[in-house]
């Protein structure tokens, strides 16, 4: 019997949109180097600039404010690296403020880059979040001072889906004279946003979270914001990011945001209803569960739930055997020994963090997927709890 397959891990990555695939296949014919002056080059250049316009329009930016990069992680590392910059055109480095303020729930690429800055002698503050994963705005404000070069706060969290009030945070930063960056990898294409309205200086987005391929992302750099390249050695991207452009990926990203613009609102409504059903279904069928994440300011398709006494990797693998793909905050699945830093930051106990799973739905998921999941999950949890040494409740 063919097992039904349900992909509930869209925050990890998404399948290509069929129309994006078509655009990529076409772009494969345009092999020229966008930097070449001849016709082949000009064709490739046109492809890249067309996509740049689309990405810019989608987030309310000017095309020249969009810089293509190889991934969200590269984009985030690039922005954080300007804290160390000692070059003349961007001298916010050694002669100016050199501290960074960020939060405890950022993606590892921000956390690790921040820790690296701290090791190199820059002041780094990690601000707390509340039990819903919202950044504590008072503490954030207190953490920013005249030594602060940059503040970086993610817009939507990848694990629990909580969406921050970026507009207010940007205002707090600017009132105190600091630059502001938001990692919007999980937000772009799911939450409507406009960089001018939010008034951010930098914003990172990624292709493969929105039905474009892996290996392409973009950074919005506000006109006039200080900047220093992370990857040097070429004039591409207005001298900001060396390396021959990934024309296929860029064309795909352009198409992906265009499609997001058309699909995201209706899809958001649909996902919200699916998440409601999921939440109600889980709460009705399984005792001793904890939902993590903000009840309203949350990505429509993301649900993080923790089951007392059930270890996350075991849940993930039993679900996998039933054809369902989710992810977990358990240490055992990550190769490290620590459970999710995000869930711990919300104040949930380590044992709950070890027993958490993340369901992240996307454009291809249906209510039937939700129902199948709800058919399978209670049996999995009760099976694990029956052999659990850490579950005293009803089985």
């Amino acid at each position, binding site marked *: 019997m063919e*097992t039904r*397959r349900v992909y509930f891990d869209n925050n990890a990555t998404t399948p290509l949109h069929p129309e994006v695939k078509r655009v990529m296949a076409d772009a494969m014919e345009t092999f020229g180097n966008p930097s070449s002056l001849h016709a082949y080059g000009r064709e490739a250049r046109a492809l890249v600039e067309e996509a740049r316009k689309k990405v810019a329009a989608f987030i309310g930016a000017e095309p020249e404010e969009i810089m293509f990069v190889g991934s969200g992680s590269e984009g985030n590392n690039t922005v954080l690296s300007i804290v160390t910059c000692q070059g003349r055109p961007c001298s916010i480095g050694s002669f100016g403020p050199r501290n960074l303020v960020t939060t405890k729930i950022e993606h590892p690429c921000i956390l690790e880059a921040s820790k690296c800055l701290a090791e190199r002698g820059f002041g780094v503050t990690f601000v707390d979040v509340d039990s819903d994963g919202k950044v504590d705005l008072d503490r954030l404000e207190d953490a920013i001072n005249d030594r602060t070069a940059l503040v970086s706060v993610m817009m939507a969290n990848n694990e629990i889906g909580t969406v921050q009030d970026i507009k207010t945070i940007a205002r707090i930063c600017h009132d105190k004279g600091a630059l502001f960056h938001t990692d919007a990898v999980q937000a772009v294409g799911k939450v409507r946003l406009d960089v001018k309205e939010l008034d951010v200086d930098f914003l990172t987005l990624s292709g493969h979270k929105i039905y474009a391929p892996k290996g392409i992302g973009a950074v919005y750099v506000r006109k006039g914001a200080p900047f220093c390249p992370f990857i040097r050695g070429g004039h591409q991207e207005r001298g900001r990011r060396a390396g021959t452009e990934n024309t296929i990926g860029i064309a795909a990203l352009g198409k992906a945001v265009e499609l997001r613009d058309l699909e995201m609102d209706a899809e958001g409504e649909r996902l919200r209803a699916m998440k409601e059903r999921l939440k109600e279904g889980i709460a009705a069928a399984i005792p001793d569960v904890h939902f993590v994440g903000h009840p309203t300011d949350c990505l429509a398709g993301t649900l993080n739930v923790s089951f007392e*006494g*059930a*270890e*996350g*990797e*075991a849940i993930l*693998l039993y679900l*996998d*055997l039933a054809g369902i793909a989710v992810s977990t905050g*358990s*240490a*055992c*699945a990550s*190769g490290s*020994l620590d*459970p999710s830093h995000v869930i711990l930051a919300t104040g949930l*106990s*380590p*044992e709950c963090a*070890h027993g958490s799973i993340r369901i992240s739905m996307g454009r291809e998921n249906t209510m039937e997927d939700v129902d199948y999941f709800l058919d399978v999950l209670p049996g999995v949890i009760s099976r694990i709890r*029956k*052999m*659990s*040494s*850490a*579950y005293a409740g009803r089985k």
Partner: protein
Amino acid sequence: MDKVGWVYSDKVLDHFMHPRNILEDEQAFQADGVGVTGNVKCGDQMIVAIKVDAERGVITDCKWKTFGCASAIASTSIMSEMVKGMRLEDAFRLSPRDINKELGGLPEHKIHCSVLGDKALRAAINDYYEKTGQAEKIQREEARVVCSCMNVTDHEIEEAVLEGARSLYEVQEKTKVATVCGECTEEVERLIEFYTNKHFCATEGRT
């Protein structure tokens, strides 16, 4: 399963899907010895309960419960089968490597999860000795301080190896061992080799 197979071996899958000897009713089992190890906070805990034929000194039944991942479940399940009929002394010497061999190998980063079962088994055997007035047979796994500057024990070095550290530098990153006077460096290197051989079969699945 689908064409990409499963993340672990078929035997691990079998024991994960159909775990043997789960301790569902502690009261009814009436164990002769019970051992608990691990910590829920760290994401893994194990209870092992044994029944012993006192005359022959042989384990007649072994049941278990865990808050643990697939590797912990599968390795303890197979261990509970292995020890039935085994003499207490032999069961006490059962190593994670023996269990791992029986399972057909776990990915290296999952070995750490599989050592709880035999630890809890030893605790259960000691518990049996204690309850039956054979305290002289109890063998404690006492930690010995190897590095007196940083107060690091042999257990911590073993733990670091289980977590994947293989070189002195990697063990130092985890434990800070031998980072002050350096007098224990040679012994630490010896221990790293010893624990690596103890837990990881160099030839298994590799060339």
